[in-house]
């Protein structure tokens, strides 16, 4: 039987680093199938030499997730070669649930020579919040994973890591989460389960609220408000009135950044993940801090 792993994760999260490291510590005959949908075969080139066979496939447009004929054909070809392990490095925009379905179909056609050994999701700790906010595919990849590597942890603070872990847990309640720097999987022991897409995936992961202010906030009250909001929010950003006009304001990892803008406004947009009402929470914090604002 050939063990097959799916390597999931958004572009730049460290999937290729994971594949190289994983294979460097593994004996036997190994193959990698890079399903990156992109025109530039960067990952395929980077992986050359890391396995007996590295095959890149392009199934059409980088943004088109419905084409899979080359993936199916490549897996059927590989099924003939009796590898010990095959790593399938998926596209950053892949739907892993659809891939699992296809894998079952492929395995039937190949005479059940494959055994699914798990889905490893590599997530870039620095941008996980952003991509979770914008991309359904990333939410699905987290939800479908049997083990999650929160990678590049050296580039972010503890607060961001905790928020990232919390966001992961809203999508996947049981897969082990490892904090990593070079996408090294500490243990290959993890349970492989049939996973299902959470029914309300976007509703439990993305909430947005706008807090509008009727007057210019003093520096202290602005900071106090954001410090109190931060543990619940992925992002605090907006346009605020300042002494000389308006400023784009962002609060991240305990630090404020401000730069001038011509755009008029006096509001903050806050984004959060979790099973709670962000609007209610923002109203509570406004009340506690005494900052006057309206949440909508």
């Amino acid at each position, binding site marked *: 039987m050939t063990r097959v792993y799916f390597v999931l994760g958004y*572009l730049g999260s460290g999937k290729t680093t994971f594949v190289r490291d994983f294979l460097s510590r593994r004996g036997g005959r190994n193959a990698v199938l890079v399903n990156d*949908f*992109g*025109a*530039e075969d960067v990952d395929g080139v980077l992986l050359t030499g890391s396995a007996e066979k590295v095959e890149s496939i*392009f*199934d*059409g*447009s*980088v*943004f*088109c*997730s*419905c*084409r*899979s*004929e*080359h993936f*199916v054909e490549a897996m059927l070809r590989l099924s003939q070669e009796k590898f010990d392990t095959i790593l399938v490095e998926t596209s*950053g*925009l892949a*739907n892993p649930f*659809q891939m699992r379905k*296809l894998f079952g*179909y492929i395995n039937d*056609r190949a005479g059940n020579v494959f055994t699914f050994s798990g889905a490893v999701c590599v997530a870039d700790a620095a*941008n996980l*919040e*952003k*991509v979770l*906010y*914008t*991309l*359904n*595919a990333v939410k699905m990849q987290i939800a479908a994973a049997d083990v999650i590597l929160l990678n590049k942890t050296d580039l972010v603070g503890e607060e961001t890591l905790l928020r990232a872990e919390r966001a992961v847990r809203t999508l996947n309640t049981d897969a082990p989460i490892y904090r990593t720097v070079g996408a090294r999987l500490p243990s290959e022991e993890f349970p492989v389960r049939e996973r299902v897409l959470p029914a309300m995936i*976007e509703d439990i992961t*993305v909430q*947005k609220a706008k807090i509008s202010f009727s007057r210019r906030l003093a520096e202290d009250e602005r900071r106090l408000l954001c410090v109190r909001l931060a543990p619940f929010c992925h*992002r605090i*950003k907006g346009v605020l009135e300042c002494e000389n006009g308006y400023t784009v304001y962002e609060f991240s990892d305990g630090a404020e950044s401000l730069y001038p803008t011509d*755009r008029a406004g006096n509001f903050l947009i806050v*984004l959060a993940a979790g099973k709670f009402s962000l609007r209610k929470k923002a109203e509570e914090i406004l009340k506690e801090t005494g900052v006057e604002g309206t949440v909508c």
Partner: protein
Amino acid sequence: MGKKLIFDILEHKRAERPAWVPFSGIHAGKLTGVTAIEVLKDEEKLYEALMQVNKLYRPDGQPVLFDLQVEAEILGCELQWSEDTPPTVKTHPYDEERLIPCRCKMPTKESGRLPMILRTMERLKKSVGDTTALYGLVCGPFTLASHLRGTEIFMDMFDEPEYVCDLIAYCADFILEEAKLYVEAGMDVIAVVDPLVSQISSDHFEEFLSAPYTKIFAEIKKMGAYSSFFVCGDATRNVESMCKTSPDSISVDENIRIPDIRPITEKYNVVVGGNIPLTTVMLHGSQQDNMKYVVELIESVEDNCHNFIVSPGCDMPYDTPVENTIGAAQAVIEFDKVKELVKNYEGTDYSKFEVVIPDYANLKKPLLEVFTIDSSSCAACTYMMGIANAAKEKYGDKIDVVEYKFTVKENIARVMKMGIKQLPCIFINGELKYSSIIPGLDELSKDIEAKF
């Protein structure tokens, strides 16, 4: 039927049957033996391939060119071409800086591949435009914006949403200019194809796409054309938001179950189209699998002669076997007969039929056996039988010609006994000579004369 049927359905009238729109983009090239590159770049080859699609698949509606990179190419993206898939965008001109392209780059009749595309549209309109509704496809504004900006656009949605709105607004204006040219060239339906829509939440759809799409579909209506909104991937959550932008129809792929979204599309009185699976059914399935899938799909949709179009989930794979699409077409066009046929095929013990196979080695004259789904209704079968009849006319008593229709149980047994997988086909003296692709009389004559 044909064009009128599509128009009736897009006008939300109750029709005789669901409409049939095969998305033969690059696959059209396979029918005439040319590559995806040729069919997407060469007017003559594209036109010939589309005429073949029209002839073999009997579409009620058909797209002219299925390539979501046409607009990106005009706006400065480099493409990487492939012989059996659509091209991919290789470079993103705004991946380093958040810029909006100049208005001077709005498309004209001379931009990029548009001259070739517009001429083909005009020719096809003249040839089949009276009977077939023609679809002009444009890349959706979100996917076009991501072609220009690359994957950074997903970070921008978080960091600089105003920029994303501006870029999408530009792309919406761009495709509206392109749509105007397509309508002038005779397109009846403008399909806006935006695969990336499935990647975002319904909140993001409302934030970034509701306004531009509402504008796009209102403008297409003003142009006097129908509109369609194509997505791929699991866009189930966005279907309601999509419907609210008021397209005449939406088209989805296998990731969405049509019965699941039908209550929503009906609530907004939007036609829904889809969704024969591209790889598992169309590419790798058998002809029977395709007929069965389409029969079950049609049966799964309530009130299926209203607001419903059967089509592949997206642009068909290049190598889709011709007979599979013929089978799918037949299932839409002759639903009752094919349903019966599928039932017979699956529910009958054919070993009890005594099929006598001719003694091919000792025939007195060449024997042409034409196996069809049904030459009275399946277009490809009609042509296949037509060419056999033409040979019979030419050679008279010197040859024998016999047709076996798959709609007759005894013939199903014969097809099984002979191991035939694809219909229509012609055997000469027991040897498979033509499968799905119809030969010319000269070619067929040579094969017959070789047996005299």
